[in-house]
């Protein structure tokens, strides 16, 4: 029997060594695998290279990993945000290396790694600082730069539901980088709200087939999904959401 479930987040991130390259899913807070990141912090792995669209928000999740001094380098498209003070401080102190990649090239380079593409010509970034030193070519009258795959040793992603084969479905825009990161890492580790029985996911709607998934951990339903009401969660700034009308009344 194939069963990719592990009992808890600590078991899920077991074996991530110092110096590993780790993709972390999410776009801002949406889809960020917070429980896995917390377990990675607790594991104490250091000198990590992190691939994520951003560089952490507030003081939790990816930001906490940075604050713990475990990250040597970050590959991302948009580190600077209103709530990226942890990264900002490390960067200005020269304590973290940054590789800035346009968001679409970041996504396509991750896909290329998973799809066995050796390199590809992208029109994004042509003639800009971020294409300096890259091979350029004109094809059919348009200029392109050559971009290489981005691979990782581990991917930590968040999905909505899984089965024991590792098939995944996501929720709304929390899907973002999860499906492509799952394909681009040697070991893909997924936290989900819930593991459902084999056959309970419609095969037409599976977004990530289990072939790309190595470990699954159920972390429980997020508070804001309880009973379909957004209670007990945090807003986009990380502040507690106002109590719902019913609770307030």
């Amino acid at each position, binding site marked *: 029997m194939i069963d990719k479930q592990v009992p808890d987040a600590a078991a899920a991130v077991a074996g991530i060594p110092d110096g590993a390259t780790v993709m972390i899913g999410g*776009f*801002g*807070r*949406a*889809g960020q695998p917070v429980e896995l990141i917390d377990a990675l912090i607790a594991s104490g792995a250091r000198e990590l290279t992190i691939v994520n*669209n951003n560089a952490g928000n507030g003081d939790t999740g990816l930001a906490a990993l940075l604050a713990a001094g475990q990250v040597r380098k970050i590959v991302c*498209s*948009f*580190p*600077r*945000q209103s709530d990226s003070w942890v*990264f*900002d401080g490390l*960067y*200005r102190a020269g304590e973290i290396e*940054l590789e*800035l*990649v*346009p*968001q*679409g*090239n*970041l*996504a*396509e380079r*991750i*896909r290329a790694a998973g799809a066995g593409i050796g390199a590809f010509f*992208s*029109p*994004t*970034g*042509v*003639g*800009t*600082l*971020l294409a300096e030193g890259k091979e350029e070519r004109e094809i059919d009258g348009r*200029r392109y730069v050559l971009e290489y795959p981005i691979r990782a040793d581990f991917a930590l992603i968040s999905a909505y539901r899984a089965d024991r084969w590792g098939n995944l479905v*996501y*929720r*709304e*825009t*929390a*899907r*973002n*980088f*999860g*499906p*492509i990161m799952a394909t681009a890492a040697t070991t893909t580790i997924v936290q989900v709200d819930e593991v459902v029985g084999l056959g309970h996911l419609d095969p037409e709607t599976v*977004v990530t087939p289990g072939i790309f998934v190595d470990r699954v951990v159920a972390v429980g339903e*997020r508070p*804001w999904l309880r009973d379909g009401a*957004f209670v007990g*969660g*945090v*807003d*986009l700034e990380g502040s507690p*959401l*106002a109590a*719902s*009308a019913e609770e307030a009344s």
Partner: protein
Amino acid sequence: MTTRISRNDLAARIAADIPEGAVVNLGIGAPTLVANFLPEGEEILLHTENGLLGMGPAPQAGAVDPDLINAGKQAVTALPGAAYFHHADSFAMMRGGHLDVCVLGAFQVSQNGDLANWSTGEPGAIPAVGGAMDLAIGAKDVYVMTDLLTKSGEPKLVETCAYPLTGVGCVSRVYTDHAIFDVTPDGFVVRELFGDNTVASLEAALGLSLTPKD
């Protein structure tokens, strides 16, 4: 000083140029205002590059869903007929030229359509590009929404961008608080003047030679 229209009026003016059925990406910042002026009852599809086509307005207070956000990481909703997809598919949609219009802010636009909107190149600044470079090359028409001049009075429409580029020759039209310009092989063509602006007054303000619309 010549007439300047408000940012909301400019957003409304841009919205009036977007035909029904268009698929549109509105950049972070002022361009998001355009959504407020899209004509009621017409179907224009909003794309957000973090994986949603058919984006709706902000949710009711108390109904914020942290899984459903736009590229500016603000809470949004999804309309009936929406579709979710992952980041590679979303940027393929953009890079492949499937979007009709994107509206972006700018630090500078050059007369050959170069766009600078991601970095002022200040020493010590933390660089961040996000999807700007993909958006710049990723729509059939790239509209820029900007003031004509910076707060200190420097032209934002220029002969050559001094700031680091976002994209080369990518801008098709510039909507400013004074006038609307088309980017053409002959440089900026004045498409529409607001209030008492004239081609001559704009040329004086910009220090550029402009072409009147024929």
